[in-house]
């Protein structure tokens, strides 16, 4: 920071300070950002912490020019600037790594980087020169990148590097990282942190958005907590504990580890024998998966997104064609049975995309609650719906599962994510299932709803239900599971008892490294 030239390794001038003052943004019916002040300086990581809907992304989208604030101003090196579009922010040296990567899979790395930039050859592209510069930049930060590869060929971690290179290429001196670790294995997170530390050392200013406390504590210099669109406070990270941060985020005391209780594992309720199936892209989805889930057990399925999790859940739920192998439910072969037949055998399924597969958005809460058993007594008789019973049932479940909804006649699409998940949970659990497949059951939910869902799953486990928990959130897997299976490219890498599972060990398995090889890697 004493560098007199004030330049970054990329040749770009540093941003000494950036300040957002009194930023207010209203959406219809929501105050997404309420007079928020935020600032970041060269050479620091400033973490922005908050639950979903706290206003983190809104604030950053304003900084990046994707939204326009209703009130407030942005000062760069002390001078007010106007940011009307991403073009403006890019020109000011602000870059953003979006949570959902902003990459075009059918284009090469070089094409993705060159997109939207003027070319040195006028109307023609200058991809060879772009590639050269990409390699130069990548070398500075120790990133290995071949610019001629197509983005669809890259792993998620590699794609994130392309995003970083893309921002650096555009001369970003300040980088906004919007939940960059959400899609990474623990090892990839470590690698990202190495890169981030290097960038900070070189004088970049970094804004790190996350809701994972331990990451915030590990990487940031300062942390700002947002809740319900308001700033709760800013502190140097060294002066605050995880527990304080959690309480700030939620606005009340939170317990960390859910109480699992001791449960005896019983008989095998769900067995997979060498199951194979296809994926949506026509490639193999599962390649010979075998496992069993016992009564009173939660079997966690860990893995990086896209390694067969979706296929696994859909195969068991009867939604995907089984190419080979057997699915056995309580000793009976149910391979190829329809979802209706599986419902009769008391299999419950909490789908990964709750808005798409979990509920019908245009249906009411009451209707969504009987979807699975609408053809059965007492909800209907000879094809006629028993509306009185359906209403009574809905009211009971709304109360029992603490669903926050104006009424049972409210359309599902008007509920928050957490409450929609409670509707799904109520429907799937109330019927006292024998087996539950829970796919990403807390994804996108706030801490409160997450706690609730986890507690309910543990309660089912105590009741002796066999639960398969598919999650990309390793903390969740470790907190809830009795055993953990790691999926990699459609295969089970290994199944580890919880006591022997560490994030490092699972991370390597998630990256496709076998444990025998681990020995030499980890030392």
């Amino acid at each position, binding site marked *: 920071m004493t560098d007199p030239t004030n330049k970054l390794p990329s040749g770009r001038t540093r941003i000494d300070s950036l300040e957002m003052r009194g930023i207010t943004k209203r959406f219809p019916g929501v105050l997404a950002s309420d007079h928020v002040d935020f600032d970041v300086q060269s050479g620091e990581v400033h973490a922005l912490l908050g639950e979903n809907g706290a206003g983190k992304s*809104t604030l950053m989208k304003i900084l990046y020019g994707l939204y326009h604030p209703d009130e407030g101003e942005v000062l760069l090196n002390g001078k007010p600037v106007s940011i009307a579009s*991403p073009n403006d922010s890019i020109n000011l040296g602000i870059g953003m790594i979006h949570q959902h990567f*902003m990459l*075009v899979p059918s284009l090469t790395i070089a*094409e993705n980087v060159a*997109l939207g930039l003027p070319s040195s050859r006028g109307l023609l592209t200058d991809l060879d020169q772009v590639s050269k510069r990409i390699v130069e930049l990548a070398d500075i930060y120790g990133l290995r990148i071949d610019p001629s590869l197509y983005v669809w060929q890259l792993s998620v971690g590699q794609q994130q590097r392309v995003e970083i290179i893309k921002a650096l290429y555009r001369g970003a001196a300040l980088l906004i990282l919007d939940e960059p670790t959400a899609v990474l294995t623990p090892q990839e997170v470590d690698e990202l942190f190495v890169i981030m530390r290097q960038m900070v050392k070189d004088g970049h200013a970094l804004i790190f958005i996350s809701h994972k406390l331990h990451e915030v504590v590990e990487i940031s210099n300062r942390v700002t907590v947002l809740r319900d669109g308001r700033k709760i406070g800013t502190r140097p990270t060294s002066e605050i504990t995880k527990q304080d941060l959690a309480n700030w985020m939620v606005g009340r005391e939170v317990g960390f580890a859910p109480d699992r209780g001791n449960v005896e594992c019983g008989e095998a309720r769900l067995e997979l024998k060498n199951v194979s199936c296809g994926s949506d892209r026509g490639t193999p989805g599962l390649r010979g998966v075998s496992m069993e889930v016992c009564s009173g057990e939660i079997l966690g399925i860990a893995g990086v997104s896209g390694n067969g999790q979706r296929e696994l859940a859909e195969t068991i739920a009867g939604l995907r064609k089984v190419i080979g192998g057997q699915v056995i439910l309580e000793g009976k072969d149910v391979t190829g049975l329809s979802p209706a037949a599986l419902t009769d055998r008391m299999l419950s399924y909490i789908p990964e995309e709750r808005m798409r597969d979990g509920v019908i958005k245009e249906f009411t809460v009451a209707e969504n609650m009987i979807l699975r058993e609408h053809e059965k007594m007492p909800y209907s008789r000879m094809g006629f719906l028993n509306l009185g019973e359906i209403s009574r049932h809905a009211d009971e479940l709304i109360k029992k599962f603490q669903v926050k909804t104006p009424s049972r006649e409210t359309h599902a699409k008007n509920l928050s994510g957490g409450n929609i998940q409670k509707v799904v949970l109520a429907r799937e659990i109330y019927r006292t299932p024998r087996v539950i497949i829970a796919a990403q059951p807390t994804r996108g939910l706030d801490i409160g709803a997450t706690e609730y869902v986890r507690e309910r799953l543990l309660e089912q486990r105590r009741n002796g239900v066999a639960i398969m928990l598919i999650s990309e959130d390793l903390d969740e897997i470790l907190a809830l599971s009795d055993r953990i299976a790691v999926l990699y490219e459609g295969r089970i890498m290994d199944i580890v008892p919880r006591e022997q599972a560490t994030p490092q060990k699972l991370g390597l398995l998630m990256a496709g490294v076998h444990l025998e090889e681990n020995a030499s890697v980890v030392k």
Partner: protein
Amino acid sequence: MITDLLSTTVLIGILASGIRLATPYLYAAIGETFGQKSGVLNLGVEGQMLLGCFAAFYVAYTTGNLWLGLLAAMFVGALMGLAMAFVTVNLHAQQGISGIGFYLFGLGMSELLFQRLMGTVETVKGFPKIYIPGLSDIPGLGEIFFNQNILVYGAYLLVPLAWFVLNKTTLGLKIRAVGENPDAADSLGVNVARVRYFTIILGGTLSGIAGASLSIALLNVFQQNMTSGLGFIAVALVYFGGWKPVGVLGGALLFSMVNSLQLWIQVLGIPVPSDIAVMMPYVLTILVLVATVSRVRSPSALSKPFERES
């Protein structure tokens, strides 16, 4: 009489008219390729062609100037494209349905204008064949490839040109990106709306030329609904061609050759019911699309309106 089909003269005739008949397919389908590459499905091609067809003919007929006719067709096509762009880009209309609306508009409007302004079927002297010294004299090949009018040559030149623009220019990069992931393009400062306006208007202009090629270069008349589904086949050709200009060329040639063949079958009086013969290109459309479905992936954002949101 079947043997007639195999005589050299007839074969050359079939191939020459096949080359010629590919012209409207090429203009329309290349234009549609640009649109779809940027994520916009325009089903209104047929309507744009019909209006272009009429505009070209009417202006050429009244002024006696074919070039003015061509310009008029391009202008009308561009105007239709502009309207389509406004409806799909600004108003976020469902693209398939609005495209059908534009088709019906073009169909009705061209008929109305024809009734009001002309009333009877007339003919014009279309663009003349261009004699290229040397090339046109090559036996066989000269007759097939180098004895055509300017719009035919233009159509074939369009293929490499379109390939070059799509793959070698910054504009092409933007078009492809906008069709695959408009959010990503937007985040990099690419103006998604502007790119789509450009491709839709370009597509309309080329559809206009496609129409003009029928009325003042190939058939040299205007009749009601004279495109008879050709614009829809052009849309199908884009899928068939896998969103590549060269693929579109292959598809266009396949269809025009079949069309040419069925025309010659009728001319030669070969005892095939004419209805069956006329049906051939359309049956082929269905068969080809069934055969090629899911062979190539379409642009991911095809027919999805783009809107910035959280």
